[in-house]
Every structure is written in C-alpha cells, then in structure tokens.
C-alpha cells in the first residue's frame, strides 16, 4: 500500500463525494481544478489532500470558468483531469464544456445538483440540471452524462465516466445530486487490478504522419500531448483534420456530424439502465439518481398490495436510452417519471415512448425527495 498511495481495497464508510474523489484517483485522474461550491466541495477538499499523495496536482481556481479551462489545459498537458461543481458553477462551465466537445478533450465534470434556479437551495437536493447537461452549451453536440444513486454507484460511475471520456474523447458529466453526494454509506473499493481502467489512446504515428483530428477507431481521433514534438494546433473554431481553423460550410459539414456520430453511432454501447420487477409490470416508474432509490421502495410497497409495478433506473441518461423506454412503453399501461425538478427527463420519456403508453409525471421542486406514498397513490390512479 505504501508504494502508490491509492485507496485501500476494502469497505469504507464514506460519503458519495469522497467515494467519487477516491474513484477519480483510481481512474487515473491526476489533475483537479475547482472552485468551492456547496454541495460538491468535499470532492475538492478530499482531492486537495489526496492528489499530492499520488503525485497529482490540485489547484483552486478563481471561478468555475477558469477551473474548466485549467482542466482542459492539463489534459492536453498529458494528465487525466476533472472538476466538480454544482448548479451555479455548472452554468459558468457551459461555454468551455463546449470547447471540450469541439476540441475533443476528454475530461470529467461532476455536478452535485442542488435546488435551483440561481442560488436556490444551496444545501439541499435538486435534479434540475439534467437538460442543461444535454443542451447547456451552444451549438449542436452530443454528450455523455451519468447519474449515480448511491455513494457506491458514485464510485463506479466516476471510473466509468473517465473511461467513456477517454474512449469517445468527450467531456463526461456526472450528474449526481446533493443527497448522493452527502450520504454516508458503505462503499466497497475493489483492488485496482479488478477495475477496468481505460488508458488514454495516444497515437503511435510519428510527427509528420499524425493529424490531430484524423478519425480513427469509432470516428474518434488519437490523442497526443503538448511537448511531444507533434506541434499540434487545437482550436475551438471549426477546423479541419490538421486542426486548422476554416470558417466555412464545408468544414462545418465535415466536423460536426463526426463529433455527433461519435456518440450517435455508438449509442448502443452507451445504454446503461437497470430494471426491477419489470417482467410482469403494468406500471413502470422511471427515475435516476437518488429518486431511483425511492422508486424501488415504492415498487416494494406496491407489490405488497399486489400491484404490478416495476422500476426503470437510468444510469447513463445522455445519450437517452430510447430503445429501452420504447420496449417498456409497448408492454406497460403507464410510465410514471419521477424527478426532483418540474419536468425535464419526462420529455425524453414521452418522446421515446412514442405514444405506446400513458406517460405520467411526478415532479418535485427540490429541497427534499418524493414521498413514496404519493408516488404509490399516483400508481393506483393509473390502475383505476
């Protein structure tokens, strides 16, 4: 254990934010730039202590705009990088999440969601940034976002987020929420050799033969880092394979579909959902994050009353698992979408269900969770 100072492979009693921070270290993250913001700060605090222990760099920047950019710079400098924030900071990061998309810079951004809009409920739960995660930066793009429901899942999804970001060279958003971030639970950290860590795919081509944005496997270009003699040009402007900016329709038509297709064409690989009691279900509750846990409890209560209720839990929310929702919609009477916002992912469920079943929405403005009995009541209304 003394040699690498990575976390001990054992059971811990830690909160979600700490689990995320330790997972980042195991995933190979060696750079963190952030700005203090509740309820994500524990990630920064934990990494301020832990990153130097594994030879990494922690820096507290002047704001979240700077944090996001510092992460991108560090990634091009050869490290795996991450930032963590909450709603207001997430808003500030948006422009440069777009820069990460355009420059195909792999990185992870954690948004421990709180109640909004604006300052909102700084210390209390919300799930209101889900659409912002998908559409928050300007222009057309595709992105990957994950939602953990427990500290243990926060741990695994952090590693998954780093892996996906390296594989597809997109920023991956970890859309946690205050409850998952602050909840302390048993978190089992497996030995590092049992974890699948996706290394950065550096090119084997020599300088001269390498083009910084030439498509390779899955349409994803191979990486290099600054200082290796490739003399790359990286720009947020529409660019060609060499990275040279060209402001015209042709270049845009070449670049943007490729960026979007990295996700769209590999969409099947990015379906990650979990179903509970859906085999015979007549009503399926749909949720993610902390809400998915409430839903499982509701399903138990419903089954006790002989109501055929199942749960669909979304682990990867973006790209949205259209097929999974459509298949369920064809089987059930209703999908009941529960989320701690006034209606965001329900729109996706409605779209994906294509009218095959009723889609009901149970929202919550934030600051607390759904009451299981309220959801149960809504379920019973469907039955009647």
């Amino acid at each position, binding site marked *: 254990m003394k040699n690498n100072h990575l976390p001990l492979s054992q059971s811990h009693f830690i909160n979600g934010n700490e689990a995320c921070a330790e997972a980042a270290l195991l995933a190979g993250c060696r750079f963190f730039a952030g700005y203090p913001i509740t309820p994500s700060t524990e990630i920064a605090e934990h990494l301020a202590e832990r990153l130097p222990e594994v030879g990494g760099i922690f820096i507290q920047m002047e704001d979240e705009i*700077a944090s996001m950019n510092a992460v991108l*710079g560090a990634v091009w400098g050869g490290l795996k990088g991450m930032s963590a924030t909450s709603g207001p900071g997430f808003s500030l990061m948006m422009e440069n999440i777009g820069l990460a998309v355009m420059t195909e810079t792999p990185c992870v951004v954690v948004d421990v969601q709180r109640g909004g809009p604006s300052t909102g409920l700084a210390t209390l739960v919300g799930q209101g940034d889900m659409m912002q995660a998908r559409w928050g930066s300007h222009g057309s793009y595709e992105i990957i976002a994950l939602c953990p429901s427990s500290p243990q899942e926060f741990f695994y999804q952090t590693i998954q987020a780093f892996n996906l970001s390296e594989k597809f060279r997109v920023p991956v958003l970890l859309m946690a929420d205050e409850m998952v971030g602050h909840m302390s639970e048993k978190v089992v950290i497996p030995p590092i050799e049992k974890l699948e860590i996706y290394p950065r795919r550096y090119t084997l081509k020599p300088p001269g033969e390498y083009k910084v944005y030439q498509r390779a496997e899955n349409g994803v270009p191979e990486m290099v880092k600054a200082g290796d003699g490739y003399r790359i040009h990286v720009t947020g402007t529409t660019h060609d394979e060499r990275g*040279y900016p060209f402001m015209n329709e042709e270049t845009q038509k070449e670049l943007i579909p490729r960026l979007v297709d990295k996700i769209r064409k590999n969409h099947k690989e990015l379906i990650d959902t979990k179903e509970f009691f859906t085999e015979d279900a007549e009503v399926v509750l749909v949720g993610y994050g902390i809400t998915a846990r409430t839903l499982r409890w509701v399903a138990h209560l419903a089954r006790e009353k002989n109501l055929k209720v199942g749960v669909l839990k979304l682990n990867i929310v973006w790209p949205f698992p259209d097929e999974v929702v459509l298949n369920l919609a064809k089987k059930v009477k209703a999908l009941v979408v529960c989320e701690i916002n006034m209606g965001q992912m329900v729109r996706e469920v409605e779209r994906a269900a294509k009218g095959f079943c009723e889609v009901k929405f149970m929202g919550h403005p934030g600051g607390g969770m759904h009451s299981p009995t309220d959801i149960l009541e809504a379920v019973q209304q469907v039955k009647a």
Partner: protein
Amino acid sequence: MNFQHPYSELLRTDRLPHIWCPGCGLGIALDSFCMAIAEMKLPLDKLAVISGIGCSGRIAGYLNVDSFHTTHGRAIPFATGLHLANPELNVVVFSGDGDLVGIGGNHLIHAARRNLNLKVFCVNNFIYGMTGGQMGPTTPPGAISATSPFGNIEYAFNLPHLAASCGAVYVARWTVLDILKLKKSMQEALNKKGFSFIEIISPCPTLYGRFNNQNTGVEMMRYFKTHTVHNPKANLSEIEISHGGQIVVGKFLDIERPTFMELYRKVVQERVKRTLDEKYEEKAYPQEHT
C-alpha cells in the same frame, strides 16, 4: 525563384497569408517573437503558445509549435492547466487586451497573484478589433469607437501597474516600434521563472486610428515614435495612456519570487512525502477486501 520566409521553420507557412489588416501591428509583434525564439534557439517542441479570441487570438495558430486557440478570455486558465500538467513546457500566452484584460481580466490578476510560470504577451490596440471596433477596458478616455460614438467616458486600465500590483515578477511595456527592445524583453521573459507580463502597444488603424485622427498605420506609428518616452524607472501608477498623450515604455519590473510550482513542490509535495508513510501506517486497516 523560390523565396522562403526567414522564419518559415517557426511559422505554419501553409496558413499564410494571415488575416490581419494592412497597418496592423500584430505581424510585428509576431515577428519579434519569432526573432526572440530563433535567437535563443529555444527547443520548439517544449514551447506552447496559447491564445484567446480576437485578432491577436490568431497568433498561436500561425506558430509552428504546440498551439492552442481557446475561448474568449480563457487563454490564461487553459495555460495554467497545461503548465501545471507539464512544467517542462515554456508556456506563452499571446493574446489581446480585450481578451486578457476585458473578459479574461479575472484570470490575469489571479495568475499574477499565484506567480504561475507563464509568459503573458498582451497586444494592446486600444479596441475590440475583430468585432468591429468597440471600446474596451484599455480604450483611452475620450476616444471614439463603435460603442463610444460620443467619446469614451470610462477610465482605462494601466496594464503594467495592474500586473505589477497583482504580483507579476517581470513587467514591461513596448510599442511595436521598439522591435529590438521588445524582442529582448520577450527573451528575458522566456528565461524568467514566474509570471511575466509584457504589454505590446500596437496600431489598429482600421478600427481605432481612423476614428481618432490617425488614419493609417504609418500615422499611428509616427504617433508612437513622437510620443514614446523610455523610462524604466517610471512610477507605475502614473503611466496610464491617454488619448493622444505620452506612452511611457520600458522594463519596469524584474524581481524574484517563488513560483506556484516551486511552492507546490516545496510545501505540498515534500510535506506529503514526510507524513505519508506515517499516515498510512495509522490508517492501514487489518482486513483487505477480497
């Protein structure tokens, strides 16, 4: 005959001609930089240039080194990450006044405060050029611009004063007329450890000069020539640039102060090294998860 640009090694010649207007000073600023690095024989593979957005933001892309063209105002934080990830790189931020001091002003003052080992070359043309000549934080009071049609009523930043008071260890100001001094200053900055800031006063006849009684690049250069005062001992608080007034140039500051990375290594990493073994013995739980 096959003519080669004297700095064809340093430039992405396949990207020329550049986009800058006739009479613009950016070519001279870039030329000074090429001269500086050619003379120093800097290992080009270990040089990275970061720019933001704007006319000056195009500089990075013309240089045949690892170059990054980031979002508006964010060259410094991007460079911060790059520098910290690979401290072996000589990281230069080459951008404009609106980019570095306007929208990116917050990053400038904090990078100087941290004494990050970055070299910031700020080309000041008193105006937002790329977007069509709007006033900015360096536009002298009284100057006419697209968004100050009745004369600018705001006070302008005095950049050397700002950089020095925020903690820069090297501060200079030159006009693009002082090409050899500018080159030397760039070389000094490149050799310096710590936050180095050079303000490069540059003409924008197209969008600044024409509306302020200096119709051509030549006229603007003539103004620089007649109004430049070389005074390295100047009191930094008194060297703001007024419309049609004096331009005080010189190397104003060249001091030593530990950099962020030096302190990170000394304070954080050594401290960690000292306490790590102890700490892990303390924390080493008996059972390992299987």
